[in-house]
């Protein structure tokens, strides 16, 4: 039996800055909470293709699982958690810029 599709976001690294970004309905954001949550598989595939075509903006787009239980998307895996937040040894990366992580 095929596995049920779980909610996802499109994520990538920003070409110029190299940092982690997420796709929104209209563009990109640096904040996972603002990402567009994709709940339909065919839709997710299309959004990923759209992202992958934006070669002068993003690098390495892929679909990442999110947990939507609290109303805003949250990482389900610790790797995505670090990507959303930044490294644990310094307050560098996203945690430097975002007050809400």
């Amino acid at each position, binding site marked *: 039996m095929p596995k049920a599709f779980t909610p996802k976001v499109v994520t990538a690294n920003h070409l110029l800055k190299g940092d982690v970004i997420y796709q929104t309905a209209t563009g990109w954001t640096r904040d996972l909470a603002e990402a567009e949550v994709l709940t339909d598989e065919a839709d997710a595939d299309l959004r990923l293709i759209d992202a992958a075509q934006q070669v002068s903006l993003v690098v390495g787009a892929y679909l990442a699982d999110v947990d939507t239980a609290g109303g805003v998307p949250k990482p389900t895996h610790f790797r995505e958690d*670090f990507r959303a937040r930044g490294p644990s*040894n310094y307050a560098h990366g996203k945690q430097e810029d975002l007050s809400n992580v």
Partner: protein
Amino acid sequence: MYKYTDFDAAFIKERNAQFRSQVERRIDGSLTEDEFKPLRLMNGLYLQLHAYMLRVAIPYGTLNGRQMDKLADIADRWDKGYGHFTTRQNIQFNWPELRDIPDMLDALAEVQMHAIQTSGNTIRNVTADHFAGAAADEIADPRPVAELIRQWSTDHPEFQFLPRKFKVAVTGSPNDRAVTKAHDIGLRMLERDGVAGFEVIVGGGLGRTPMIGKVLRDFLPREDLLPYLEAIVSVYNLLGRRDNKYKARIKITVHENGIDDFRARVEERFALIRPQFGGIDQQLLAGIEADFAAPDFKTKPVADFEAAYTNDPVFRSWADTNLTDHRAPGYAIVSISLKAHAATPGDATSAQMRVMADLARDYGHDELRISHEQNVILPHVHKSDLPALHARLKEAQLATANIGLISDIIACPGMDYCALATARSIPIAQEIATRFDDLKLEHDIGPLKIKISGCINACGHHHVGHIGILGLDRAGVENYQITLGGDGSEDATIGERAGPGFSADEIIPAVERIVMAYLELRDAPEETFLETYRRIGLAPFKAALYPEVQADAA
């Protein structure tokens, strides 16, 4: 130190200009990422978890104060005010932006540094004993040979697309501080019947399939070095597997074909190409050697040192762990620990880099080295200068007295930075160091090397750690596997897996149980952890690590 020729300077300048235009074309969209990636990797530029990462070569770990100052300037101007020194005598900048990389490379070129061949399937930065040119046990300084290999391998047209990356390490001492047996090629300088030469070791490597290198030639005369290396790498280039990335390293080539078959092919190729090396390489080497002439060592009394050693216990403790015998009377080799308890192993702030540069100029004949254990060395310091030097290190929080002890941990960047990681390494290193500092046991425990990697690539050398820790992802949770009894010295050994892994919460107590077991089981305080392990084997440590298994069996 080696000084760039006009040729070298022009080469780097042109190469940087080339890369600048490639970056511009990537930004304006004329190059895709697939086209750009191999080009950026050829210039040491990775894209990691949170940012780009620039890996800069510090050939054979040698640099001077001006170069260290420049690294500090780069960290301030284009990064976040620090740099990360690695096990391969590189420095990594973790936060640059793509647009700034060409300027960073130009800044490096001002002090004869670059990032060429710090990535990609090519001959990487040649590493060497970090006490080169200073150690009391040294037969010959390995750096001129390492520099010769660098010149030969840099942009070598035949070796830019090898099956996989290729690492060469050289040591000039019988006590191997360059981990030569865990490299694709390890060279150990020897003298036999008054003739200088090398023992050539091939096919060592860590990563997914760790292997200790095998002796390819027990004695290779010095004049034959480059043709012989060329023969090895070209045989590997032909024979190495390109069908499977995980089987592509020369260790697998040697393993699958057998060392005898591999040797026969190398010798055949060597005989063919030897005549092409008409001696220019030896002339070059002679010129390089002149650049590595030893500094003018002073003769001064060492009374100040002895007084401080007797009267100041803090100084004494530091001197006992962080100094190594120098070959010149009255001198010492100083290891500066980048492993302050709770700090990130291998990181130095720009302010600390500048202090180290100043200390090298003031007391160390303007020489610095980076060790594969992620520390910084001042190779030539007169003992009478040590008290003053120590005071300045203290001020800069660089006086941690823990070289070779349990908190002197090698840790790869792990999942805090690295895109390939499966778990974090840095917090584990920080917690182990803090825990044993709290217990005040570190000096009682004595020499003990803990090495941590955040994935099976083994950048943190965990296989050759006395205690090795490998971070894995077990069903979406960080899990840490322990190996014991590894050794990166001339007696190189791959550690044995102790058993099932531990969660992030369990790993520090697990390490503590191993260490407590050692303290109980050692013959005498002089018996090191590794000696105890070799005497009694894995079983008693396993019992300490998994007490519940013992209880079940009882």
